[in-house]
């Protein structure tokens, strides 16, 4: 398990503009989210549904030293990483589900994570994710918002605060993201 200070340290390095720091953050958060989820499964019966939002918030509380990281900025960095991590987890699951459907290896998938993305059919989610990659290269800001909402289940208002943008801008970006992805999927 990564130490709290590691993460807080990375966050402050991201804040001061260290480009390598963000890369280090993601695997740590990813690992933590998986562990958190696994711990739940071990404890409870199968068929459990976890709220993605609750999961990332818990990871934040566990990983980030609250006394030293009170600025919104570092929260934003953390949640952006968490959203990306959630995305990978969900995409991995979608791939596994699809494999299972095609008679491939059978992974235990008794834990459900609830967020908007988890309502999609696996094939479609993978297609959305592919379109999202294009959105990321062309409109990184928009993609960041989309990931927070779609994979981390953040309400639009909270996502706007985390990204330091106005609710109006968030609303506009959300509409843009939907139109962009929808257009990509239907072309």
């Amino acid at each position, binding site marked *: 398990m990564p130490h709290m200070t590691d993460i807080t340290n990375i966050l402050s390095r991201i804040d001061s503009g260290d480009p390598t720091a963000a890369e280090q953050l993601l695997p740590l958060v990813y690992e933590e989210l998986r562990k958190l989820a696994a711990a739940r499964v071990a404890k409870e019966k199968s068929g459990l549904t976890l709220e993605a939002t609750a999961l990332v918030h818990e990871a934040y509380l566990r990983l980030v030293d609250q006394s030293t990281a009170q600025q919104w900025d570092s929260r934003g960095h953390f949640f952006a990483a968490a959203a990306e991590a959630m995305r990978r987890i969900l995409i991995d699951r979608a791939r596994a589900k699809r494999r299972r459907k095609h008679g491939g290896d059978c992974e235990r998938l008794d834990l459900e994570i609830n967020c908007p993305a988890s*309502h999609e059919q696996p094939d479609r989610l993978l297609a*959305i994710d592919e379109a999202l990659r294009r959105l990321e290269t062309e*409109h990184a*800001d*928009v993609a960041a918002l989309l990931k927070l909402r779609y994979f981390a289940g953040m309400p639009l208002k909270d996502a706007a605060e985390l990204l330091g943008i106005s609710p109006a801008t968030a609303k*506009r970006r959300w*509409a843009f993201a939907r*139109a*962009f992805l929808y257009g990509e999927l*239907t072309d």
Partner: protein
Amino acid sequence: MSDVRSVEVCFGELIELNSAELRADYLRRVGLENAILQVKLERLLEAHEKAGSFLQQDSVETTREFESENLLNSSIGPYKLRERLGAGGMGVVWAAEQRLPLKRKVALKLIKPGMDSEQVIARFEAEREALSRMDHPHIARVLDAGTTEQGHPYFVMELIRGLPVTEYCDKRRLTIRERLELFTKICSAVQHAHQKGVIHRDIKPSNVLVSEQDGQPVPKVIDFGVAKALHQPLTDRSLYTGVFQALGTLQYMSPEQAGLSIADVDTRADVYGLGVLLYELLTGSTPSEKEQLASAAFDEACRMIREQEPPKPSTRLSTLGERALSISETRNTDPRQLSRLIRGDLDWIVTKSLDKDRNRRYESANSLAADINHYINCEPIEARPPSLTYRLKRFAYRNQRTVASVMLVSLALFSVGGLVWQRSVATYHQQQAAKRDVQLAQAITNEIQSLILQNRFDDAGERLFAANEGGLSDDTVQLLSAQVELFRGNFEGAVSQLREISRSRKDNDRNVVPLLSYALQRSGLEQEHLEKLPQLFDIKCETFSQYLFRGAALKTFHSKLALKDLEDARRIDPTNHLAMWLYSSTLLTAASRELDSTKAVQGLDEAIQNLDALVRYLPDNSQFQSDLALANYRMSLHLAELLKPAESDIFANKADALYDSLPLDTESAYADRAWYLLSKGKLDLIQKELAEAKHRSLSGNFQIQAAAIAQFRMGNDDTARALLESSEPDYVTSIAGIRAFTLLEKFSSRQELATQFSQVVKNRKSEPGIFAFQDWIVYKLAGEERGVLDAAKSGLTHSRLLRRSGWGAQAEFQAGNCSFESALDACEERFDVVHTQFYAATAELANGKRAKAIEHLEAVLATGEFDVYLYGWAQAFLERLRADKNWLPWLND
């Protein structure tokens, strides 16, 4: 709106605009400065409108919540929900209890999530006062509207416990007569609303509830004001897709509501709605059947409503088969009697209510009811079978009526004012009569041209015949009939008809010459066409057709002048589709000649927009699709030139898709597709489709030439030549030079080629005109410089088109007067570049310099102008030169 502004910001601004017009206007303004941005925004907007609840899973949750019973006993404003009455496409209806300011039971209609509540309520408020003025025993009053805490709009109305009218009638087995009596009550309710300034817009059985009082059926029309409030702007195609699918009212929608343009819906839309209701009460089915509409794409369904004439009620009954029995049973009769009851007067009454042209419907709900009462009382009805002759007469009659009423007023003044008036009244009358003729002629012109564009030539002919009987002048009929023949592909017939008219009507050049000149050009009679040009320029155009056909005639000669005329024609009649198409295809021509890609992109952009609209409107016309495909293809070429590969790919893909799905139903569709296939190297498919076209008698010179090139590319020179010789005789003569290509392998020396070819040229009866360039290419290959110069001279003397194009410069180059580079510089159009590069390639070949020749041929292909036929030959030459290092050994001698 500069490039600096991001697509994201512009998109935000765009979707803030709440009407389709404002959005279209915004896009247009963006397009003026940045066509690519415009394209991006259009795509995004389209996606935005179609996206529905995409990615918004939370709204699914909301809907589930909303539809459930959980709301029982909860309060919405001053209303407490007491009983769930039912759910429809657009929401859930509850019986509710109002406590303040007075205690009463009401119906509360809770609208599904997905509507813009603010706008819904604003539209409702705008009509609230008019709604409050309505007071009629058969109208359920709408009492209130508001928004729930979750933001869903709701409507409150008088609580009616009844059945939808059709259901009630069937359940009680009401006879036709009883149904008609009930129906006239509904008419009176609608009439009352109209008098108070309220249009319903969504009349359908579920909005007419019937309950019983003292054993008598009492209909109540509900939802007045609701449809209007829920209406999204109609022009907003995708938006209203959602709404109407939700409302499920497609089969009750009037043609004007299903239109492409902004519909100024008036009371006659309700008359139409009543007509549909009557149809259903009589036959048990709607004029456009629900299943049929449901299986069609939304646009197609709208088009059906706008254009498809429904069967008369009695005809529908006769096609119902087994269902007829149960339908007549619920009407307390048997199928034969039912059919007899409906055939005739009731057929006509329904048909008149359902006329596509609202001017020909009953002018009010009252007059519809009055005609039904005539029927019930066995009096003669107002409705008449709507034959075309009758409709034309009505048209003329309507106009005469205005003349007559003007006359009455004038005469009254005359008795006061004396003789002066008499003269001015007479003049006025004449002017009005002339104006009436013009109006009638334009209306028929639009009708005929619209049929032409739907390839319904026989129908067009029939309509013309009837129009003539209805009083349309012979002159106009002749001109229109020539147009029908021209677009049918009967060039010879059209030209001879027009020549005839031109001879007999010396004074009427303005009307005949532009059309004749266009017909000559379409017929390939270039020389004669060009001779008409000076006359064309002298004409002072005034009417729509004069501008339209002068523009059309100038299209290939001078596309910029042509565009001006076509713009004028469109200004006179912006609704005419032929004008829209000719304008767009001329834009396409102008853009293809444009060497400046930035300018070309602008023109193509407009062309694509127009053609897109035309394809949507008349999806069966392959010419529009083919033009749209070419426009997209050209757009991709120019964008590639502007170093925008991603955008270029978008258009290229769209072009491919369009060519792949091009409906092959005309000669030119087959030809356009063949040249496209040729450029893609799909040679087998070309042969296959040629066989198919021949079988359907739709093969033409251009498709044949593409097939010949395909054979030539495969090394089958004899087959290629045989194909070329199967073209029309005149055309075979014209392409003597090209035919010579298929003989090249047979010759053993340049000398032989030169001798044989001069023989062909000598035997030719007429000058080759614009085709002279083929001659000089062949002579060049043969190393016969004398022949090259003669051919160039002949071309330049006899073909004005050749002279004014870049080929003039090319002739200079041949004569050794200028370098190849300056000849190329002098090319003003892209297809000049094709010819000049091709010629340079033959010159190098003649010198035995294969590598250089290959470079020039590659330069031809770089233009991408695949519909210029030397492009096809260049591709073929290139392949043969590459495949065989020793192709045409005699060239090396």
